[in-house]
Each structure stands twice: as C-alpha cells, then as structure tokens.
C-alpha cells in the first residue's frame, strides 16, 4: 500500500508544468482566440517532441508504455493553465481507445495507419461519444472515432459532416458531427463496442476531473494574487475574513478532490472494467470543487470578475464546460447511487480499496 507518486512522476510534472506556465499564458490563449484554427501549431509540435502523444501507448506498439498514474498529474497541469488544445483528451481518451481496438485484434485496414500517424505526430484523432453532444476541435482532426448504438467507427475527416456550435468558452471549438455508419468503417460492435464505449466514458470523465482540479488551482492562484493586490478601505481586500473564507472553502474542496482523482487514475490503469465507482466519484468531486471555485473566485474579483478583460474567464468558463462534459454531476452521482443500492456493494471502512483488502481474511474463513 503506497498512495504516493514517485519522484520521477513528480519531477516530470514539475518540468511539464513549468513549460506550460511559460508557453500557455492568458495572453497566448487570447491570441489563439484570434486565429482561425484556434491552436498553436508550434506549441503542439513541442508537446509531441516531449513524447506526450505516445506516453500511454504500449512499447510493443511503439509508445512509451507508461500508465494513467504517470499522466494524471500532467493532465492536472494542463488544467492549471487552462490549455485550449485538447491534448489531455487525445492522450488519455482517444489514443487509448485506438490502442484498445488494435490490442483486441479489432479495427480495419486504417487503424494501424492511424495509430502510427498519431505516434509520429502527423495525425490527430477526435472522439465522439453519445454522452457528449459535440466534439471539441473537430475541425483540426484528421480522423474520428465516433459511435452509433454499440458500434464504434473509425472515419476519415472527408466522410464527416460538421456543424459548428459556439461554446461559451472561446477556447473550445465545438462541432456536432454526423456520418454514415457503414460496415467498412466500423471497428467494434455489440458487447465489445459497448464495453469500449464505457471505458472511454470513464477515461473521458477522468481526464476532465484531473483538468478540473488543475483549473481550480489556477483560479485560486489568480484570486489570491488579486485579493492581495486590490485595496479598499486602506487595506488588501484579501485581509477580510469574508473573502478569505470564500477561498478557503475552495481550497478544502480541491484538497479532497485530488486523492479521489488519483485513486480513479490508478483504478482505470489497473482495472478499467471496475472503475465506474472510482471515476464517477472523481468526476463528481472535481466538478463540485471547480464549480465552487468558479463562483467564489468570480465573487472575490468584484466587478472585474464580470468583465471580458479579466483573465479569470478563461478558467471559469472551461470549468463550466468540463464539469458537465463526459457526464454531469447527476449522471455520475446516479452511478454511485445505483452501486450503493446493490446487494453485493462492498460498504464499510475495510473496503476503501475494494476486495483486495480482505483476500486473506476470506481464505482464513
């Protein structure tokens, strides 16, 4: 039993986080808003050179063969700077689905080509899932993994029709897509397809949970700075307890969302088919923390918090979106509720880490 990250994992997070802080600032995010594609190609190739795209791909397929717990802190760091490009989703959700399909001997003639392209940094894959009405950054993808019923389809851009939808968050570029679910583009179906869709949903929810934790930290940092600098009645507004307590409440929620997200990352890594409870808990807790952060941090910014000029909006709006994408609080709480009502639910303090904790006791009778 060891619920810590390794020094390597922490060092990698430090390195990526400091790169992100210098490359992805509020100014560079705003300059992305002014471009047609909304992505910074130079930054994306930098990310590729760092090996992020191949991090979670097994070595046998040409990747680095690392696990979800190796990436989760990086996902959090991406959230902390409110990174616009959908790197977290690509690394944690769509690429692992491609790998799963390939691993299980599914797929079609295109799949190997697509995986190779992703590893080489030449191709981008976007993901459509029934739980989400839109696909983010669909316009910069070359291939699509989309679902229809239990089926999963690997479709080239040319065979997709797009309709742009405007997000409240200018960093998000939403499209509703449609395609013709023909046999030759179907890569999974039936029970297998349904299972892959479920594990994809869990990965997506986890990806958002980690980013929501990071977003909350980002909002807190800005609010501490602002309330320290801004003076009224001859002193910093942050010296007032009413202001302190709004931010302390956020800090508490964030602190207690983190271990839940890390446990979910561990569970998705070692036991993806039994990760529903852990993931739903993570998404629910992280969303709650981030929505509270959005509200309280807007409040402590006063009228500035309600302006376009204030950079806080880059974070708050993302939190509003990610909190509800990949299943909102109701969806995830309902999964936990159903689990709590199951006759075979493992309830009680001895089951924090599931049945693994009592194997020996059962053997001993």
């Amino acid at each position: 039993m060891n619920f810590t990250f390794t020094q390597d994992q922490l060092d990698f997070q430090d390195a990526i986080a400091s790169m992100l802080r210098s490359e992805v600032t509020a100014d560079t995010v705003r300059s992305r808003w002014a471009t047609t594609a909304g992505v910074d190609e130079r930054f994306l190739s930098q990310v590729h050179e760092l090996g992020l795209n191949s991090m979670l791909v097994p070595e046998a397929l040409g990747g680095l063969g690392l696990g979800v717990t190796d990436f989760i802190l990086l996902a959090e760091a991406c959230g902390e700077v409110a990174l616009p490009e959908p790197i977290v989703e690509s690394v944690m959700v769509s690429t692992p689905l491609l790998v799963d399909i390939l691993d299980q001997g599914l797929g079609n003639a295109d799949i190997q080509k697509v995986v190779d392209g992703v590893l080489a940094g030449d191709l981008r894959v976007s993901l459509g899932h029934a739980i989400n009405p839109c696909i983010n950054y669909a316009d910069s993808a070359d291939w699509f993994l989309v679902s229809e019923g239990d089926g999963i389809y690997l479709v080239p851009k040319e065979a997709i029709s797009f309709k742009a939808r405007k997000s409240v968050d200018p960093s998000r570029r939403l499209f509703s897509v449609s395609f013709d679910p023909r046999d030759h583009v179907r890569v999974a179906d039936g029970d297998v397809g349904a299972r892959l869709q479920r594990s994809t949903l869990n990965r997506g929810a986890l990806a958002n949970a980690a980013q929501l934790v990071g977003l909350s930290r980002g909002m807190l940092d800005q609010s501490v700075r602002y309330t320290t600098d801004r003076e009224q009645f001859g002193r910093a507004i942050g010296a007032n307890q009413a202001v302190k307590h709004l931010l302390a409440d956020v800090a508490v929620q964030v602190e207690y969302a983190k271990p839940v997200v890390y446990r979910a990352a561990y569970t998705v890594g070692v036991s993806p088919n039994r990760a529903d409870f852990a993931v739903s808990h993570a998404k629910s807790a992280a969303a709650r923390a981030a929505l509270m952060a959005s509200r309280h941090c807007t409040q402590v910014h006063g009228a500035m918090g309600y302006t376009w000029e204030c950079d806080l909006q880059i974070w708050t709006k993302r939190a509003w979106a990610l909190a509800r994408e990949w299943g909102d609080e109701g969806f995830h709480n309902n999964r936990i509720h159903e689990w709590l009502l199951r006759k075979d639910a493992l309830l009680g303090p001895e089951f924090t880490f599931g049945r693994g904790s009592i194997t020996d006791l059962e053997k001993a009778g």
Partner: protein
Amino acid sequence: MDLVYTQAQQTFRAEARKWLTAHVPSERLPSFDTAEGFEAHRQWERTLAKGNWGMVTWPTEFGGRGCNLIEWLIFEEEYYRAGAPLRVNQNGIFLLGPTLMEYGTPEQKARFIPAMASGDEIWAQGWSEPNAGSDMAAIRCRADRDGDEFVINGQKIWSTRAVYADWVFGLFRTDPDSSRHHGLSKLLVPLNSEGVTVRPIEQLNGLPGFAEIFFDDVRVPAFNLLGGEGEGWRIAMATAGFERGLMLRSPARFQQACKRLVQLYRENGSDVINPQIESAVVRCYMDAEAYALSTYQTASKLCSGGTIGAEASCNKIFWSEMDLLIHETAMDLLGARAEIEPQTAAEFAELGAWLDGFMFAQSGPIYAGTNEIQRNIIAERVLGMPRK
C-alpha cells in the same frame, strides 16, 4: 502508487479482526460521560492494553506494536467495523502520549506512559480558559515556580472528560511578565490535588462531557513540567501536532457511519418524500471515502519520508462538516421519529444512535479550533493571503 495491501498488512488486519471479534463487548456500553460508563470504558481500555491493542503506533516498550500509519488506519478500520467502544482516554493516548514520547524525560515517560496505556490514568485536557478560546495565546492561568514546585492559580474551561478523569494536561503561564505565546509551559496536574475544584458542565445531551477546573494554590512538582519552561506553545504547535491532527478523527469512523446511513436509506428511503435525500446519501458516502483516501495519501507520504501537505490544515473542516451532513441526512431519513431519544435496546434497534451523533456533530465545527479559525489558517498559511 500501489493501492493493494501487502501480505503483512493483510495478516495484521486478520489478527486485529480476530482479536476484536473475541473481545469487543456485545452490549453497548453506557456513555463515558456517566460515572458508570466511564468505568466501563476504563475497563475496555484495560482490555485493549492487555491485548497490546491500546495504541498500535506506540513502540513495543510502551505496550504498542510499533505500527506505521498505514497499519494504524487498518486497525482503525477493523476497530470501527467491530463496533468497538469510543476511546475514553483519547486525550491521553492521541494528544499527550505522542508529546510525552517526543519531549518527555526518560523518567517522565516511565512515570506516565504505562499508566496511560493501561487505562489506570485517564486524561482530561486543559487548553481553553474563559478568555482564551479561539485566542489560545491569551491564556492567563498562572503556574509560579516555587523551589521544586509550581503553584497554580486560575481557571480552565471546556476541559473534555475532566469530570471523571484522573489527570489534566494543559498550558499555563509560568512567566508572569510574559504575554501571548511566550512564557507558557506545559504542565501535568493530578485532578485530586488539593485546591483543584472541578465543576461539571452539562453538554447539549445533558451529560457532563466537559468541566470548568478551578486552581487555588495547587502545588505540583517541577517533575510535571513537560519540555522546558516557557516552551509550552512551541510544544503544543510542534510538528507532531500535524500527525495528531491526522489521528484525531480516523476516516473509519465516518465510513462506518456512512455504511449505517446507506442501510438506513435502504430501509427508509422509499418512505421519505424528499428529492434531496438521494444526493445527500451519495454525497456523504463520497466524502467519507474522500477523507479516507486523503488520509491514506498523507500516511503514505509520511511513511515514505515525505512531509505533510496542505491537506492537514483542511481536514478539520472537511470531516466536521461531513459529520454534520451524515447525521442531518440520517435525521431526515428518520423524519419525525428523529427527535425520539432511544431508551431501550428495541428503540436503539429502531432508531440507532443517530440523534446522539447528531448532537455531537454540532460540536465538530467548534472544538479543536473553530472552523472559522481553520479557514483563516488555510487562507493565510496555505494560500498566503494577507493577515491584515
């Protein structure tokens, strides 16, 4: 990261479970805030000590098992799973014991720790005074050095367990010219000393869970000074304090309460017309588990030589508000029956101990530093917001 118990940890769990199953009293003990219940709980402490289960984290020389914090968590899980009695000597074993081990002389350790471990001496705590509550540095109760003795005059209040306890520890002003956190010392005082008057204070449930203590020329030997003279504040705030904070409320307590809450919900949920009840139950369960995960994370960090992080400052707010929500939700599930105080075993079977827990939960956000003080601490020391 490896969230699987080792073979040794599983064996430890099995051993704890076996012992607890054989020894936990089958009948619910009366409250330790009654004379009869206090002695019954003292007896339970003796039973624990005989089995070397009194304080598993203590070194073996003091009757412990030298367990690390992960093993402590496992023991606590089994303890609450078994429905074992509350710890009447909590002030001693969780608060004073570790401080004695860190700052006590060999003679002091030999004098106080075995008697604490065996349940022969039960401890009350004496921090607060009428004018030193949240502002603990305003302590005025004096202890003047007189040769080999200290002479104590003044008053303590809200001293938990003081009505039936044998000893009290607390902070006293040993330098009469000092102010604030300077000139305070930690002293250990027998409650049967001449000049000590204990006046019980009835808590919300009508039982004398805490007391005022009046000191009128009370003489204690200088041997009872823990740490150096004038070092009381530093000792009280020492690093070990973090660990004690971690151990003050073990996650298993809340997880077990949530297990009972889910059972209550399964039984009564369909009779309750309250659209919020489902999400409240789910929220309680998630929060109890989050608290457990956070504690495991902290324990793991400390076990692998790391230092404790921001979570230490956040934990009091988190568990005390969770405890309120758990009990409020149970009260909602009981509906109008929630006000009935169970008197008989049959009534306990019907209503559980939710009402008593609900009343006790009211105190959580208040004691050990109110949650408002905790929020100030988080804002200033964790987030770095301006003090003034």
